[in-house]
């Protein structure tokens, strides 16, 4: 599902900036010209060290978000009401793992092994989308996640699919295709509650109120405060600014929420008819950073469960492992 528009920065920038000084200036020019022409970069191509680093970080965080994102929704797998909802939910959570698989492969083409990425997730060194550190308290939460978080992810991923790195674009193409199923099944379950009994509607409204701030956080801090990287835009690693994507999301989905008679917990939310842009109360960005740094309601559980899965599956992986065989990275 989910990239999360925000790429969390790592503190090791200095060393890589030095590596960057060693980038061959002629090759750099050719590389940038290639991207400007709209050509894709492939795994074996020469690329600046910083481009490689940023891409690994971006794709890896996206992959982590998929497998961690499977947990909040997985909360309702055994409880989903009725055959159709149940099968759709299992299939959806399965897709998230499938997306993780595709994305880890794409990141591996850049030279970092799947194991190294998983270790960075488990140690907390590498981040994932903040939105998955919130609990799915009721069935209505699942419909809000399925509809709105997936919608937000689609905005982000459709943009990223036009980026410059071939393997990431190809993974995103497949992912976006499956996301359309996620969005549709989420919207369907969301509408079911919105048009149901007063209790169902209240349950949905409550979930919506709780998820609104994490959703506003989803695309990352406002452009005016976040370090805007011209280079990442030029290299087509980052395809649109945080505010740009947030605005696009609001434009497409707020009307779809309002048309069902639901409200959003922000009295200032409106589309300015003069500018055509959405206005809203800034969500609490301190909370955003608190959650990134481990202080969210579910950070600990998410990693604890992920650690359990790795630990529990270790004997299966180890039994079938052949340490003498030469390993290689995915070719494309």
């Amino acid at each position, binding site marked *: 599902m989910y990239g999360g528009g925000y790429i969390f920065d790592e503190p090791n920038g200095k060393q890589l900036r030095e590596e960057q000084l060693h980038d061959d200036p002629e090759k750099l020019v050719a590389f940038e010209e290639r991207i400007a022409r709209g050509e894709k970069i492939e795994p074996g191509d020469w690329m600046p060290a910083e481009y490689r680093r940023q891409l690994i970080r971006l794709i890896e965080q996206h992959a982590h978000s998929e497998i961690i994102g499977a947990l909040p929704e997985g909360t309702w797998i055994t409880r989903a009401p009725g055959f159709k909802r149940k099968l759709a939910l299992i299939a959806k959570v399965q897709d998230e793992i499938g997306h993780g698989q595709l994305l880890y492969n794409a990141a591996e083409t850049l030279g970092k092994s799947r*194991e190294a990425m998983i270790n960075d997730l488990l140690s907390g060194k590498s981040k994932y989308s903040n939105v998955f550190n919130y609990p799915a308290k009721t069935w209505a939460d699942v419909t809000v996640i399925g509809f709105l978080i997936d919608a937000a992810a689609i905005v982000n991923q459709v943009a990223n699919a036009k980026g410059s790195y071939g393997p990431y674009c190809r993974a995103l193409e497949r992912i976006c295709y499956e996301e359309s199923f996620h969005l549709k099944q989420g919207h369907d379950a969301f509408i079911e509650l919105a048009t149901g009994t007063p209790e169902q509607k209240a349950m949905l409204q409550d979930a919506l109120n709780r998820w609104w701030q994490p959703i506003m956080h989803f695309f990352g801090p406002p452009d005016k405060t976040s370090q805007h990287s011209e280079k990442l835009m030029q290299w087509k690693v980052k395809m649109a600014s945080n505010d740009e994507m947030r605005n696009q999301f609001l434009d497409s989905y707020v009307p779809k929420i309002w048309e069902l008679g639901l409200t959003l917990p922000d009295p200032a939310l409106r589309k300015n008819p003069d500018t055509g842009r959405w206005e809203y109360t800034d969500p609490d960005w301190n909370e955003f950073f608190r959650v990134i740094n481990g202080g969210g309601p579910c950070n600990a559980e998410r990693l604890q469960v992920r650690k359990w899965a790795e630990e529990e599956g270790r004997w299966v992986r180890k039994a079938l492992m052949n340490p003498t065989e030469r390993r290689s990275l995915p070719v494309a």
Partner: protein
Amino acid sequence: MSNDSLDPRVNRLKLGDANAVIKVEEGENWNVYEVFHQEKRGAHHEHVGCVHAPDPQLALVFAKEQFARRKKCVNLWVVRSADILAFDVEDEDMFANNLEKNYRDASGFKVMEKINKFKQSK
């Protein structure tokens, strides 16, 4: 046993310490196999991605669900990524077709021109 999770599945697990250091060993996720997908009989097998697997047989088992659980598919191939040989990307210039080699293409032969010329000459 309860882990105080909202997920009843999770409450059935014996979770370890949240701060425990868990490390996955290099190679634990096995080898990489490239996957080729055949959409219908008579079509080419096309590259669709890869799977991590300990051997070709399980690579096929895994590829089936990761790459053919939705899209139409009649067969799959898997091959170890290490066994794929490709040109260096720097050698892309070898593939630049010289325009003067149009003797290889249908467009290099102006048959109608010659016929028309012959007809006019009569």
